[in-house]
């Protein structure tokens, strides 16, 4: 545990990526392969202990220390590992037996684990840094400035291998990644995975920048498609068995049992899941009724239909075709579609014809009023399907946002990076003489603005309930948002999609903002 805690501490205290890479590589060379593998799993958030839940650990700690003081401390610090390691006030005795890293992993995985006893003993017998690393290991969510992508890139550097090759097998492997590490150390071949049971990390787009990117777009080199406002999904099928994954690789098949087709050979498709019948999309709010319903009722299935609009194909007739270019893949998608998918659950994303950029811009501008099209996708015809956000291949040109003025009502301290600032805000608008909440926003402001907002909250607090402060209703903020929908779940009757700060109107009086019914008539038709 000592080496692991030193590694974590070195990483969190090291602002330079070059040095971080070096620190990780040194560690990998130092420890044995199994320990290295579990550490890689932990740092990429793939090490899960099924008996351990954050709330249970919190409960245990709160039963051992003053629970009010714990809550106040956690509210202030914002990081559970920092809070627990610091609030624990036993000085460790050196005499006690210390468990090795691998022993700890084994114990945490065992079925007859006495979590309370183990956690308490560990905290009693280890120093501050080890306690901190232990809680991080237990609960994941490291926040030490080394993302999963960064760790994978570091592995590529460690083994002098191509990082796309690591990504291709990554989701099919599991901790402690012995085959992967052996291959990286040139002690074994390229790892084999079960292709039909593996989510293949999606290819993502970078944001389109009108100033920089416009002159690069041409009908010779690019195709344009609509960006639909649903959820991106990956469909796998082999031996007539379907698996459906969300963008993060979560298996969501059981929520959408109506998505079926037959294919004996492995096929992997990429598309957008949308609510709607006869391929006419409905709002994201409709789709939301289906998300996270693991066993949807027959009634729900009847009321809210879904379909998938296909963008791409990764495997075709059992073969990996990610190294074919987009035009070839689109052709194969058409082939596959006409053979297997002519049902009411799939259609193909249309390609928007254009002969110059001006035409494209006109279409883009017309999207302002659209409810379901989030923008345009501009894809290089020769792009291979590469996991992650590769530069210069796919660009998303998001529809221009809409704006409303709203009044700050409540503030809550953020977690993590902003834990000492009031950074999560609730906004409302006037409905007759009352102010009703319409949106929460926690992004879009600068660091300096955050400091000012924090001061505003502290100086204008009326009451506080737990971590939430209610403030004097006198600050107006112009919020940007992507779209507005009707919603019965909210008191205001509306829901905003992706609200964020646009401008803080320190100057604007609250009585000059639009009323709720005025907002409804402007944005909802």
């Amino acid at each position, binding site marked *: 545990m000592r080496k692991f805690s030193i590694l974590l501490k070195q990483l969190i205290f090291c602002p330079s990526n070059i040095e971080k890479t070096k620190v990780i590589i040194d560690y990998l060379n130092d420890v044995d392969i199994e320990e290295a593998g579990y550490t890689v799993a932990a740092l990429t958030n793939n090490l899960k202990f099924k008996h351990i839940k954050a709330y249970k650990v919190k409960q245990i700690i709160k039963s051992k220390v003053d629970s009010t003081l714990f809550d106040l*401390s956690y509210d202030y610090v914002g990081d559970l590992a920092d809070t627990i390691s*610091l609030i624990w006030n036993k000085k460790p005795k050196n005499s006690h037996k210390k468990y090795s890293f691998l022993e700890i992993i084994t114990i945490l995985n065992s079925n007859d684990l006495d979590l309370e006893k183990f956690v308490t003993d560990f905290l009693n017998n280890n120093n501050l840094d080890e306690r901190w690393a232990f809680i991080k290991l237990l609960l994941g969510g490291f926040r030490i400035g080394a993302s999963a992508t960064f760790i994978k890139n570091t592995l590529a550097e460690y083994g002098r291998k191509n990082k796309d090759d690591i990504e291709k097998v990554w989701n099919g492997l599991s901790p402690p990644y012995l085959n992967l590490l052996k291959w990286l150390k040139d002690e074994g071949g390229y790892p084999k995975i079960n292709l039909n049971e593996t989510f293949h990390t999606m290819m993502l787009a970078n944001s389109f920048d009108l100033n920089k990117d416009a002159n690069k777009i041409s009908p010779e080199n690019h195709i344009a498609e609509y960006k639909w406002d649903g959820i991106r999904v990956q469909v796998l099928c082999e031996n007539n068995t379907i698996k459906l994954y969300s963008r993060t690789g979560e298996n969501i098949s059981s929520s959408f049992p109506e998505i079926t087709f037959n294919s004996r050979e492995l096929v992997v498709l990429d598309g957008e899941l949308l609510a709607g019948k006869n391929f006419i999309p409905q709002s994201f709010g409709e789709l939301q009724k289906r998300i996270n319903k693991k066993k949807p009722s027959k009634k729900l299935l009847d009321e809210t239909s879904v379909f998938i609009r296909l963008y791409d194909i990764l495997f075709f007739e059992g073969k990996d075709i990610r190294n074919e270019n987009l035009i070839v893949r689109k052709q194969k998608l058409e082939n596959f579609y006409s053979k297997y998918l002519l049902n009411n659950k799939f259609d193909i994303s249309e390609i928007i014809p254009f002969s110059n950029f001006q035409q494209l811009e006109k279409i883009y501008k017309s999207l302002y009023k659209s409810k379901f099209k989030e923008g345009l996708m501009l894809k290089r015809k020769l792009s291979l399907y590469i996991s992650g956000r590769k530069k210069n291949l796919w660009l998303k040109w998001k529809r221009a946002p809409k704006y409303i003025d709203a009044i700050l009502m409540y503030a809550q301290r953020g977690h993590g990076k902003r834990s000492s600032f009031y950074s999560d805000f609730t906004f409302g608008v006037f409905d007759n003489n009352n102010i009703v909440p319409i949106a929460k926003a926690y992004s879009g402001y600068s660091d300096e603005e955050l400091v000012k907002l924090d001061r505003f909250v502290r100086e204008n607090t009326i009451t506080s309930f737990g971590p939430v402060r209610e403030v004097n209703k006198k600050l107006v903020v112009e919020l940007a948002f992507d779209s507005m929908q009707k919603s019965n779940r909210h008191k205001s009757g509306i829901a905003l999609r992706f609200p964020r700060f646009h401008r803080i109107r320190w100057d604007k009086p609250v009585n000059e903002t639009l009323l709720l019914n005025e907002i409804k008539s402007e944005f909802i038709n």
Partner: protein
Amino acid sequence: MFIEALNAYIDPIKPVDKAIITHAHADHAKPNHNKVLATKDTINIMKIRYGENCAKKFQAIEYGEKININGLGITLYPAGHILGSAQVLLENKKNKVLITGDYKTKSDDTAQSFELVKTETLITEATFGLPIFKHPEPAEEIEKLLSSIKLFTNKCHIVGAYALGKAQRVISLLRKKGYDDIIYLHGAIEKITNYYLQRGIKLGKLKKVTKDDVHNLKGKIVIAPPSALKDKWVRKFPDVRYCLASGWMIIKQRVKQSKIELPLVISDHADWNELTNTILNSKAKKIWLTHGRTDALEYWCKKNNLNAMALYLKRDD
């Protein structure tokens, strides 16, 4: 804080007629008051910072020397926070009120040692008023700086430390550990450090950093105000290891946010244990909490059957 019986303020943030100043930190000592009552050191440092005429009249009193105004006794006691820092005891026949100001009870060779004062009402600071704040021994923290110099022999170690108090304490701690190399100072620290020297505090060989130095500071220590670690000044140095001496550095997420590579948990304020011990040992029956994280201390007092309330002063914490 306004004391009605005296018609005077303690650490006022705006110019007033009569001010009692606990210590010379900028958030407590402001210029342009009419009359200032404080320790000799506080007055001298105020003059260095703001000029000889930063108040119309100064009255210096010794620690423990009681003066009477309008039937109210005023006595200053050492607060252990920085050189010249004081707690203020106000008393009449019926009542005793102690205002701690900023304080710490841990030993510090660059400040007069904290003195515990028994009182009926205690107005205490609460900067580190959460049980997560337990400052380690400063000597252990300084050891980390010394081993870092040995490990990163190519890097200039720039240590962020407040110009008044913290900077001199860090230097003194280094000397105590036997570090006898020249310690370099950012310009903003020089004047006040000279005052410490003049007061007989031993800080060894010091030198103000000049343009010519910056390339010859491999493995050396430079002390600078924390703000200098973020401004253009620091870019002049070719290979820097960023260090910061502060009680906040005990929270690792904080260290990460501030992009500090070597945190040194050295504080001029009382930690949780010092705060709670002082509250108990003062035997106060009423406790008012100001200046910092008051909610946890208030809860703790009530749990220990002490009458406590938070006092909100209009000031940033």
